[in-house]
């Protein structure tokens, strides 16, 4: 498959760009909800609109009422989300939770997918227990209890956790905390008794939860996939999250770069447009090169994931790490090249820096994924 968008994908990209540029724009969404101190960190009306566009079901099979598209298409939407810093539960709900539900039984799908397709439901995914991403360690425990399970433990950095109608929770049903096997994924409804939320606002004004589970009773229907066999499902969810976050990161990088290059063409210093200074030209050109390469890595990873290729997971880590590098560079150069006004809350470039930081941590940072590339490559 060639590494560029085919005609249908290009059309989707146009649609997504127009929609996010208008409806998802910074002034209309991010600043609006942030300045309101909104407890969700995003707007439900936009989520509904995204459902009307078909975006929410982009990865949901046609048989289940979705568009049945792949990670390339989800990435197209995410890149525009990143470019406009549009706050939405798209990545956790339509990409990660939808990937999990895709491995679930008919009952689960019937229970949760219609709400997602309609833009009425929001989902979250709870994996990490601690401040750094580490899916190899799952201590949160689900013990057999009657026909179901009893959940105890805690989860951190659950993005949209407090807004979610359902949370996909990775818990341990056997073995010890760093065992690869013995994991089970559960679809935990928001009203489950015994669940405690400590919701925090993050630097990018998105919301995340520290969740505690104290004897949370789940019935057997809550299991996604096989009991004790959740690692495979979790890996799919993780790869979807990595590649999705990478696509959004490329969007952040491009948004930041475009804004900065525009500024270089407008701002005068010492009687010249600052874009005429060769030192800035070279740094901007280097940045362009890094962003282009990150974008190629992300598209490659999306295609491999859609094709179910053996090396998809390796490339997912390459994509997440490279997107992190490129976006990190883009926002740093962005703020520095904007000078003083780049430091003010009034200008949008600082918002890119904040979003990049939160996105960098989400599903593992560049160091984690570089290390994973090394491990998967056998060194």
């Amino acid at each position, binding site marked *: 498959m060639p590494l560029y968008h085919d005609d249908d994908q290009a059309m989707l990209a146009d649609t997504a760009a127009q929609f996010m540029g208008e409806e998802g724009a910074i002034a209309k969404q991010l600043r609006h909800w942030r300045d309101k101190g909104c407890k969700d960190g995003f707007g439900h009306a936009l989520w509904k609109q995204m459902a009307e566009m078909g975006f929410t079901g982009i990865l949901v099979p046609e048989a289940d009422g979705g568009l049945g598209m792949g990670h390339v298409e989800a990435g197209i939407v995410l890149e525009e989300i990143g470019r406009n810093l549009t706050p939405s539960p798209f990545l956790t709900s339509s990409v990660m939770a939808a990937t999990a539900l895709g491995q679930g039984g008919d009952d689960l799908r019937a229970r949760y997918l219609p709400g997602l397709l309609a833009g009425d439901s929001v989902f979250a995914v709870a994996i*990490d227990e*601690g*401040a*750094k*991403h580490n899916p190899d360690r799952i201590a949160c425990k689900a013990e057999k209890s009657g026909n179901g399970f009893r959940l105890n433990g805690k989860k*951190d*950095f659950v993005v949209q956790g407090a807004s979610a109608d359902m949370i996909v929770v990775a818990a341990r049903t056997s073995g010890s905390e760093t065992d690869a096997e013995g994991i089970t994924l559960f679809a935990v409804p928001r009203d489950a008794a015994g669940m405690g939320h*400590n*919701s*925090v*606002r*993050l*630097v*990018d*004004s998105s919301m*995340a939860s520290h969740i505690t589970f104290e004897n949370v009773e789940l019935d057997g229907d809550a299991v996604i996939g096989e009991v004790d066999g959740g690692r495979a499902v979790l890996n799919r969810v993780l790869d979807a999250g990595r590649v999705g976050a990478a696509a959004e990161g490329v969007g952040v990088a491009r948004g930041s770069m475009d804004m900065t290059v525009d500024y270089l063409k407008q*701002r*005068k*210093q*010492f*009687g010249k447009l600052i874009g005429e*200074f060769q*030192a*800035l030209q070279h740094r901007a050109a280097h940045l362009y090169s890094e962003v282009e390469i990150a974008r190629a890595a992300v598209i490659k990873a999306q295609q491999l994931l859609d094709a179910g290729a053996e090396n998809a997971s390796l490339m997912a880590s390459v994509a997440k790490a490279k997107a992190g590098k490129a976006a990190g560079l883009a926002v*740093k150069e962005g*703020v*520095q090249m904007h*000078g*003083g*006004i*780049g*430091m*003010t*809350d*009034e200008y949008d470039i*600082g*918002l890119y*820096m*904040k979003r990049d*930081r*939160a996105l960098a*941590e989400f599903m593992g*940072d560049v*160091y*984690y994924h*570089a*290390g994973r590339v*090394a491990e998967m490559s056998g060194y």
Partner: protein
Amino acid sequence: MSDLDQFRSETRAWLEANCPPEMREPVRDDADVYWGGRKATFKNDAQKAWFEACRDKGYTVPAWPTEYGGAGLSPAEAKVLREEMSRINARSPLSSFGIWMLGPALLQFGTEQQKLKYLNEIARGEIRWCQGYSEPGSGSDLVSLQTYGEDKGDHWIVNGQKIWTSYADKADWIFCLVRTDKNDKYRGITFMLFDMETPGVSTKPILLISGNSPFCETFFDDVKVPKQYGDGIPAQVGEVNRGWDVAKYLLGHEREMISGADGGDRTAAIGAILTRAAGAPLDPVLRAELAMFDVDALAYAAMGEKFLDEVKVGKAHPAQPNMMKYAGTELNKRRHELIMAAGGSAALEWDSSESSEGAKPRAWLRTKANSIEGGTSEVMLNVIAKRILELPGA
């Protein structure tokens, strides 16, 4: 016993007698720093006692001459005082842009009457100054400033706007660069002093990406600045239209101050601190990044020491503060990137039920201004290229 040893033991005794125990604790919040001025209040009696003892001894500005409110200490004595204060962790009795910036300018360029009046007021903490340099359109190209003072015979009418005026909303007076000749870029700027309560002056705090800030926008709307204050004290420092000389002189001071303040005084490996804080071994690739950073940071700490040693004896290249500022601020930005990475999602918290501070992310974002304020990294590199490497056309 040498004179200096004598001075040291006297100083030690004086500090013991006059520096209250509360003033030997680290500064915890803004109110712990005393800035003086018309509107100043003391946080507590200890702060007041310590300030007044220092003021009366001339120790708010120990190296200034006694007639201007200082203690007239020699450089060697001033060093002993600094060492003895640092030994007991004594707080600074008075923080002031008057001391750090306007004072040095007046000492160099002021008339005798200006010195007598303003330096004493500064030393006694009676006046709080702010600095009006940058403008929205000027940035690194300071000299392109547009704020204009129209000559009206015995006064100017000033119109324009300043930005990045630290504590403009709390200051009594401003020292301010004003264009007084539109035909000469460099020789058409006057370094003016005027009261912030003059009609037409208004300020507006700037919200930064890191949150609230001491920075303001300052607006001048037909502000009337007399050319003389009272008994023939000129309103400007230096000559009219030659304020750029004063500003340049002060920029050097500012860069030395900033170059000393950032990233330079840490001699402990950050990797160790962050690993302890994390309570577990860090990711091996992150550990490697920290190790590579610590090499740079510990080397820079040595550079900081070398620079100060050389400054003391006049061995440092006059443009070396630019190098220090560049390297120190870039390093500090990297330091905070790594603090954020080691802190993981916990370091992302802006506010939560436990804290509405977001200290880590705010500190991280704040460092991004290090390489902009006081001369951008790009300007520092230009200066190094021109004045140290003597590259052509730089």
